[in-house]
Every structure is written in C-alpha cells, then in structure tokens.
C-alpha cells in the first residue's frame, strides 16, 4: 500500500480522518496512513514544510495561508470546515451570574481568549463590531486547556472560546452562551455564511510527486465527509478514542460543517476569501493571498 504520513491535531475538527481510517476508506484506496499527533498549527505547518508529513488533517486556514506565503502550495486544502451560528465552534460565553445579555454588555469585563494572534484578532474584531473599543475590556489569551477551569473559578467574566470548552463550561453551569458563529456574523456580515477557519491540507510536494495517491487520499476523505454529513450520529463514536472527548460529551458535542473543496459554492469561496483578506487587514497575514490558488478539487 502507499504510505501517507498524516499530522493529526486530536480535536473534533479532525473527525474525517478518524472516520476514513477506522471505516477502512483509506485501505480501500490502497493507502496506509501513519499518524503523528501534533498539537497546534505551527507543528503541523512545520511538518508540511519540512516534508515530515504529507497531510495535515486539520490545519487552521490562516496558518496554512501563512505557510503558502512563505512557500507557495505547501498547504493546499482539499477540504475545509465551515463554522457559523448553526455549526458552532467559536463563541462568546459569559459567567452564569454575569448580567450581560449580549456581547455589547461586556464593557469593563475581563475576557479570556483562545490563544494565538488569529483568535485574539477575531475576538477584538467581534468586540469592536459590538461597539466595544480597546480599553473597554481586558482581553487575555489563555491556553485552551485552561478555559473551563478559568471560567469555573470565575477568574474571567467572559470568554471567547472554542468547542468543546464552551459546551463543557455551559454544561457545568459555570457559563451561559452569549453568541456563537460570531465570525460569520460580525466579520463576514452574515450569520449563516460559512467561516472556513480550518481544513485538511496536503503538501504541494505530495500532490506533485504522487498525484495519484493524493487523489485516492482525497477520495477516501470525501467518503468520510459524506458519512459525517449524512449520518452525524453514527460517526460521533470515532471522537471518543481519538480526541480530547469523553463518552459523555461525544453524543452532544457540536459539529462543524465539513465540506470537500469540490462542493464549495461561489458564495463559500467568496466568504473564504473575505475571511483571509480580513486576516491580512488585521496584520496576521503579511500579504493577502488568493485562496483559490491553494484549494484543490478532486
């Protein structure tokens, strides 16, 4: 079988990989995958650039595009994950006892943010869109592992957090959800628009040197995405063993909108480009990039 090295960030966004692997879709295509668990985009991107992995199962798109600026094509997406008010991922939560009813009420609050410059920029943009200027609030980035504890302990009044931390803290009764899908709403200007914040990326080298393997890989991936779209409940069990997800939350954890690049609509592409342009405008990307150049349809 053809060997493919996949870098995996063990969160729910990597679900298609686990589905394809465990349901034998890769094997059906004559592919044997070797997984390396890597936490965070830098490690994944570093793996792609140095050729230590062929695929990043779940690479944040801003980080991928950053890589493409440095080395064009190094992160070429074959599938992306949409998130918005329906497909919840990023969200603002507030302490259960806090009076705030909307993001606009967070004036003077101590807010935690998911880590990294991109998350910070998004949080600030959302706050700004709700009329809060810098200085109206205090925003600290905090490692994802600490979000629930920090919210539970009341160290922060509110948080710009991601799943599953958001859901866990709400379930514990520590927080209430204020609003989810906020990038779509406030950055893209449409709460139902897809924000493609992450996706599965292949290295340019892989695509060029073993085009047929890459194609078969994408095919297996597409089958997994298909399963997820059509039978969300049966795929959830794949989260338990493979990601930071317990058996209790697996059935209820919110999903993102897994899409193959070939299935993206023009609107989707437009929103994707808008998201990336916004990142450039915020200084997270040194230059802007044409996202279409780094998408590959199979």
């Amino acid at each position, binding site marked *: 079988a053809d060997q493919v090295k996949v870098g995996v960030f063990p969160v729910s966004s990597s679900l298609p990989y686990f589905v394809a692997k465990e349901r034998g879709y890769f094997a059906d295509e004559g592919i044997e995958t070797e997984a390396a668990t890597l936490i965070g985009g830098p490690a994944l991107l570093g*793996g792609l650039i140095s050729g230590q992995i062929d695929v990043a199962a779940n690479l944040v798109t801003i980080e991928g595009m950053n890589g493409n600026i440095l080395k064009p094509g190094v992160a070429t997406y074959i599938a992306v994950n949409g998130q918005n008010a329906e497909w919840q991922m990023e969200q603002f939560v507030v302490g259960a006892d806090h009076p705030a009813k909307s993001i606009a009420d967070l004036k003077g609050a101590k807010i935690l943010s998911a880590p990294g410059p991109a998350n910070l920029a998004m949080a600030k943009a959302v706050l700004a869109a709700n009329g809060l200027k810098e200085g109206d609030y205090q925003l600290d980035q905090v490692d994802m592992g600490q979000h629930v504890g920090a919210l539970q302990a009341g160290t922060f009044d509110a948080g710009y957090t991601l799943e599953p931390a958001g859901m866990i803290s709400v379930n514990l009764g520590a927080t209430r959800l204020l609003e989810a899908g906020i990038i779509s709403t406030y950055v893209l200007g449409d709460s139902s628009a897809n924000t493609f914040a992450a996706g599965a990326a292949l290295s340019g080298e892989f695509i060029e040197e073993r085009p047929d393997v890459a194609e078969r890989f994408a095919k297996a991936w597409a089958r997994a995405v298909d399963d997820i779209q059509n039978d969300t409940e049966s795929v959830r069990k794949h989260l338990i063993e493979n990601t930071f997800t317990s058996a209790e939350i697996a059935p209820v954890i919110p999903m993102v909108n897994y899409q193959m690049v070939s299935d993206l609509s023009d609107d989707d592409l437009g929103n994707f480009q808008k998201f990336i342009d916004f990142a450039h405008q915020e200084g997270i990307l040194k230059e802007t990039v044409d996202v279409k150049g780094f998408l590959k349809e199979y």
Partner: protein
Amino acid sequence: MKIGTKFYPLFGVLGLVVVWYLGVLSEIVDPILLPSPGQTLAAIYNGMVGGELLFDFLRTIERTAYSILIASVIAIPLGIFLGSSENLYRSVEFVVDFFRSTPASALFPLFLVIFGVGDQTKILVASFGAALVILFNVAYGVMNARETRLLAAKVMGASRFRVLTDVMLMESMPQTFVGLRNGVSLALVIVIVAEMFIGSVDGLGYRVINAQMLFQMPDMYAAIFVSGALGYGFNLLFLTLEKRFVHWSGK
C-alpha cells in the same frame, strides 16, 4: 538515628493531606476545581489498576528511560573527553551554559524541525536537556579528579590513556551520578511537557492535558501525583544505584 525517624516523612504527608482537606472542606476553592484527597486517590487507584493511567505511566517511563540512556551514551564520554582538557572545556563551556539556561520547551520548535514529528522528538529534546546537565557534571568531575591519584597512577607507570580510564573515569563517577540524577529529573519534566504540548496519544503529560480538556479534575490530579511519584522514584533509583556503584563516594 532511632527507628522513629523512619516515620517522620509520614508527618509531612499527613500535614499535606490535612491542608488539602481543609482547603476542600472550607470551599476556599470550588470543589469542582479541587477534588478531595479521597477522590484523587480513588482516581489514582482506578487508573493504575487496569485503567489507562498505568499505560500512560509506563509510556512516560519508557520515554524518559530512552532519553536518559541516549543522554548518558553521548554526554558521559564527551564529558570525559572535554573534562580531560581544561582549555577544551573552557571553549565549550559558554555554549553548554547557554543552552542549559535556555528553557527546553523553547527548543521544541527547533527540534521538531530537525528531528521530525514522531515520538523521537520528545525523547530527543529530553535527551538534549539531560545531556547538557550530565555533560557539565561529568566534565567537572573529571576536571576535579584528585591530582594525587593521577600522580600516583603516573608514578606507577600508567600511560596517559590508562590514567584516563583507570583514574579520571572513576574519579568522575560521584559527580556523574549527580548529573544523572539532575538529568533524569529534567528529562522527565521535558517529556511530560512535550506530551502535554507537542502532542501525543499517551503518557502522563497527555493524560494531564486530556483530563484538563475534559475537565475531569480527579483524573487530572491523579496524573499529576503519579508524575510527582515517578520523579521521586527516578531520583530514588539513581540514589540507590549510586550507593551501589559508587560505594566509595563521600567516604
């Protein structure tokens, strides 16, 4: 020392447990955030007897053992070599000290780049950290070899090489063990941090971060305490080895 002194450590442990219970009972910290000693103990027991914690524990031991092995194999001969010439050691001392002062976790990115994304990176970062500590101690041990013993060997007709193997090597042993003990502590810390932050599917660091992500506090504290015990155990192991193999040390 009377027999009673053997039990002194128990007082300390007891004190710790009491403080912990008081912390829990007084609800100074939210009971969801800080489980009671009993819950934690139960989590340790369940985890270690047939649970996943035992597996993670063994994985971390395995990684740490490999790191210290690699570190020793590289650092001990190198340390002897460098230590046998003071000028040579002075040349590299700054670089060694510099890297010793660099938080090993800051070196993760560099090592990921050089050694790739596999398990070997965690082991190699830990080896690197441990090797510097061992190197430095071995070199000092060799440099501080008793002049008299070196002269004694020389006057008895030992060649330069024999002086190195028969005397310097043995002389550096006590200090080498100091290095090994510090090295293994450091290696363990780095392995756990790597398991926490570079990514892993097992090991105590993974267990801590996993329990944290899932907000299973008893499990998290169980993993933390097992890490502490492991560190203590490694230290004890090397102390025992030292007593056995460097029986003359300190006498």
